[in-house]
C-alpha cells in the first residue's frame, strides 16, 4: 500500500489521464444530482411545508391536487375520525402575476391554508401573504405587492417562508378567504364554494398507527388519503424527473467504473514487470490488490475534490432560476457512488495481476 502511494506521489502525471475524465464525470454527477434535488424540492415544497401525516384527496381526484375538492363537511368528518389531531384545508391556484423585480409576467402559486404546521406560521391577514424566499432571491421585498391573475388582485408580501414551492413555481401563502377570492376572481371556470378546499392536510395524535388513521378516514368518507411521500410522488412530473435524472446519474457512475477499469487495465499491463518483480521478492497478491484499490480510491477522491470544487464554483455563479440544491447529502452520495465505481473498476484488473507469474521477473520460466 505504501508502494501504491509512493507511485502516486512520484508519478502523478500518469494518473492525470484517469483523474481528468473522472473529474468531469464527478462534476456531471454532482450537477445532475444537485439539479435533481433542486427540481424535487422546488416541485414538492408546497406539500412538504405542512409537516402533515396525511393528505386527504377526494376519490374522483385521482391524486391530483387541482382536481380534488373537499368541503367543510368533509373537514369536520375527518376531524371526527379517531386519532386525527388537526385538519387544515388547502387550496392552490396557478396564476400569472406581476412580481416586483421581474419584467415578464411570472407564473406563481397562490395557496390558501387554515392552520400553522411544518414551516408555515398561522395564515397571514387577508390580502397579505407569506412568500416563498425565492421571491426574495428574485428581487422582491417585504411590503412589495404582487398583482395576481387577469384581475390583478393585489397581495402584499409580509414575510418569508422557506422551501414551499410547487411545480417549480414560487408560492404565496394566504388565508383561505383570500385564496377563494383570488381563485374566483381570476378563474371563473373553476369557482370554489365558501368553505371548499382542494385537499386536507391531516396530523395524527402522537404514537398512533398513522396508516390505520388514514384507512379510517377513507373508510368513513370514501376519500383517498396519501402519506406525504405518496402525495409528493403524485405531483405531475416528479416521479418522471426522479427516474430520468436518476438514470443518467447511475449511467454516469457506470461510466466512472468503465473509465477506472480501463485505466487500471492499461496501467496493470504497463506494470506487469514491476508486479512480477514484487511477487518475486515476496509481495502477496493481497497487498498488490490493496495497492491497486488504494490507488483507484485516491484517484477517485482527487477527482471528487476537483469536480466538487468546480461544481461549487459553477453552482454559485448559476442564475437563481436554475433550481440547484447544493446539498452535502448529494455530494456524499456522489462520493460513495464514485468510490464504489472506482473499486469495482479497479478490481477488474485483479485477475490479471493474480495471473502474473513471479518467475517472469527473471526471464526464465513460464
Amino acid at each position, binding site marked *: 500500500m*505504501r*508502494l501504491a502511494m*509512493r*507511485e502516486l506521489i*512520484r*508519478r502523478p502525471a500518469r494518473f492525470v489521464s484517469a483523474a481528468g475524465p473522472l473529474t468531469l464525470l464527478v462534476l456531471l454527477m454532482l450537477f445532475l444530482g444537485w439539479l435533481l434535488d433542486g427540481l424535487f424540492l422546488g416541485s414538492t415544497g408546497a406539500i412538504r411545508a405542512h409537516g402533515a401525516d396525511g393528505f386527504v384527496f377526494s376519490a374522483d381526484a385521482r391524486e391530483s391536487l387541482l382536481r380534488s375538492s373537499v368541503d367543510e363537511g368533509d373537514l369536520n368528518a375527518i376531524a371526527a375520525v379517531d386519532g386525527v389531531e388537526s385538519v387544515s384545508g388547502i387550496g392552490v391556484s396557478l396564476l400569472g402575476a406581476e412580481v416586483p423585480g421581474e419584467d415578464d409576467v411570472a407564473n406563481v402559486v397562490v395557496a390558501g391554508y387554515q392552520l400553522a404546521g411544518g414551516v408555515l406560521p398561522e395564515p397571514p391577514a387577508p390580502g397579505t401573504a407569506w412568500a416563498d424566499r425565492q421571491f426574495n432571491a428574485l428581487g422582491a421585498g417585504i411590503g412589495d405587492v404582487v398583482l395576481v391573475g387577469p384581475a390583478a388582485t393585489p397581495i402584499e408580501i409580509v414575510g418569508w417562508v422557506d422551501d414551499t414551492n410547487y411545480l417549480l413555481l414560487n408560492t404565496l401563502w394566504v388565508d383561505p378567504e383570500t385564496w377563494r377570492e383570488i381563485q374566483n376572481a381570476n378563474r371563473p371556470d373553476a369557482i370554489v364554494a365558501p368553505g371548499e378546499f382542494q385537499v386536507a392536510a391531516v396530523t395524527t395524535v402522537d404514537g398512533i398507527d398513522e396508516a390505520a388513521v388514514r384507512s379510517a378516514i377513507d373508510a368513513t368518507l370514501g376519500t383517498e388519503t396519501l402519506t406525504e411521500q405518496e402525495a409528493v410522488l403524485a405531483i405531475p412530473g416528479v416521479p418522471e424527473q426522479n427516474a430520468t435524472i436518476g438514470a443518467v446519474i447511475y449511467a454516469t457512475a457506470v461510466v466512472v467504473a468503465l473509465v477506472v477499469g480501463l485505466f487500471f487495465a492499461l496501467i496493470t499491463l504497463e506494470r506487469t*514487470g*514491476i508486479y512480477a*518483480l*514484487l*511477487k*518475486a*521478492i*515476496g*509481495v*502477496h*497478491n493481497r*497487498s498488490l490488490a490493496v495497492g491497486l484499490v488504494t490507488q483507484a480510491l485516491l484517484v477517485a477522491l482527487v477527482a471528487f475534490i476537483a469536480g466538487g470544487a468546480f461544481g461549487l464554483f459553477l453552482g454559485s455563479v448559476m442564475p437563481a432560476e436554475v433550481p440547484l440544491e447544493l446539498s452535502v447529502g448529494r455530494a456524499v452520495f456522489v462520493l460513495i457512488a464514485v468510490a464504489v465505481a472506482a473499486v469495482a473498476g479497479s478490481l477488474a484488473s485483479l485477475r490479471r495481476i493474480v495471473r502474473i507469474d*513471479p*518467475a517472469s*521477473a*527473471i*526471464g*526464465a*520460466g*513460464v
Partner: protein
Amino acid sequence: MPALEFHEVNKTYRTGGTDIVALDHANLTVDDDEIVALLGPSGSGKTTLLSIAGGLLTPTNGAVHVGGNDITSYSAKELTQFRARSVGFVFQTVNLVPFLTARENLLVVARITGLPSKTAARRADTLLKELGLDHRAQNLPTQLSGGERQRVAIGRALMNEPELVLFDEPTSALDTSLGEQVMELIRKEVKGRETASVIVTHDTRMTAHADRTIHIVDGRLDAGAAQPA
C-alpha cells in the same frame, strides 16, 4: 544443516511440441555459509537452477530443501512467503522498482516481512554504506549507473538476512575491475552474515571469490556437487 539441497531435480520446459530439459537429475548441496560459484555456458540451466532454489519455479520432479524445509511441497502462498523471508535473489538483468529510490528499494523488502521500521532503516543504511551507495541512497534507479544499480540489487537481496542468497550473473553488466569489486563485496557481505550463496557466472575469473566451483553443462551438474567442500 545444509542451506540448500537438490536431490535428483529435473526441470523440463514444455514449449509447443518439444520438451527442453533444462535440469537433468541435478544433485547439489550448499553448506550454510558456503559460497558456491555455478559456472556454465549459456543455456546450460543456471538460471533455471537458481529459480528453483529461490522458489520462483517448481521442478518437474525431485526434492529441493532450503534450510531443511522441502519447498517443493509449498503452496503458491507459502512460496511467496518463502521468497520474502528465506531467500535473496539478484536477477540476471537488474530489476529495481523504478519509482523508488535506492534506499526505498531496500526498505520495500523489509516492509513485506514486517520488520520494525527503525531496524529496517538501520539495516538499509548499513548495507548502502557497505555497498558504497550512501551518497546515492536518495536517487532513483534511472539516476544510477549500471554498477550502482547492481549493488542496490545486491543490497535488496541481503536486506532480510536470508539463509540463502542467489546471484544470477551479478557481474555480467560490469567491466572486469568493477566485476571484481562487486564479487569482493558479495564475498564480504555474505561471509559477514554467515549466509550461503550461489553465484552464477560464465566468467572463470570470478570463481576465485567462491569457496567452491560447480560446473553445469546441458542441465547436468558435476558429479561431486552433492558433496560440500
